[in-house]
């Protein structure tokens, strides 16, 4: 039995310590992703907290055929979708207001790193494709897992990952050109 399996078994018995240790390795990575998706820093924290609580509460339903990180992302995506759903009457929800100056992602990137590619990705890709790119290139998830997580077909996932790559490559080349011009 691997260490992770042992921690999952202990957490299923109710051990908070085991659960904290189990999610400890995923917590910051997940929070980093939530910062790219949530309207504000506080929302990202709230979603992370809800995700952890839901994961602990429903750990008994965790199926070991999934990677634990994939299961956590599934819960996080459900929670983030809940705060981003527009009201039926079209009114602006308080969550849509976000941070006053820029999103949480801008705040968490140093000023010297303003050409961070994820900022460009946020600008040119839609939410779903952005998520697919993140899961593929940051979390190293398989295309099959991403498709299952997003409730999309494998072919849809492959095609959109390919298109997103092209868009980001173009953005990257453009930024490199701009930088080289600036330095003569």
């Amino acid at each position: 039995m691997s260490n992770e399996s042992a921690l999952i078994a202990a957490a299923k018995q109710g051990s908070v310590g085991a659960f904290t240790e189990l999610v400890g390795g995923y917590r910051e990575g997940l929070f980093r992703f939530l910062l790219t998706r949530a309207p504000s820093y506080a929302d990202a924290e709230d979603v992370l907290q809800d995700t952890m609580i839901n994961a602990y509460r429903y750990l008994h339903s965790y199926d070991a055929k999934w990677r634990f990180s994939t299961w956590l992302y599934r819960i996080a995506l459900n929670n983030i979708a809940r705060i981003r759903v527009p009201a039926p009457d079209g009114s602006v929800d308080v969550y849509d207001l976000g941070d006053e100056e820029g999103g949480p992602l801008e705040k968490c990137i140093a000023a010297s790193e303003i050409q961070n590619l994820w900022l460009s990705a946020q600008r040119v890709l839609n939410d779903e494709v952005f998520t697919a790119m993140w899961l593929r290139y940051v979390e190293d998830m398989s295309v099959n897992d991403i498709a299952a997580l997003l409730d999309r077909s494998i072919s849809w996932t492959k095609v959109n990952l390919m298109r997103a790559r092209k868009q980001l490559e173009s953005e990257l080349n453009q930024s490199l050109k701009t930088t080289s011009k600036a330095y003569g």
Partner: protein
Amino acid sequence: MDKLAKRLREDADKIDASLSPQFKERLRASLENVSQERTPAAPARQSAGFWWASSLTGIAATLAVIVISNLSLENPEPARTEPPAQQFAAQFDWRLQPAVLTQTLEQELVAIQSDLRKAERVVRDDIDQIVVDLPPENP
């Protein structure tokens, strides 16, 4: 790993996602709360001495009640088994109005039918009178 994938990975690492100690504490407290919801607290185990003490206290209290009740009932009154009849009799008014029958039922029926015929005749006469009094309609 190609250039784009490498850059995406590096740029993700540049996002500061460190959690504040306050947030970590908040998270830990939330999980503790959920943990308490999941496992309701079991009643604390009591020692054998506690059970002996409580049993003896119960027996002593029972004996005290028996002794006190026997001492206070030296001249007990006989218990009443039936309630007094007057207690209920006064609650009901049995007086009823008697029916006023001056003739036999058959004669009463004949008299009522006669009254009905008279009333019918009066109504017909009234209707005829109204029709006669109406002004003629304009052509």
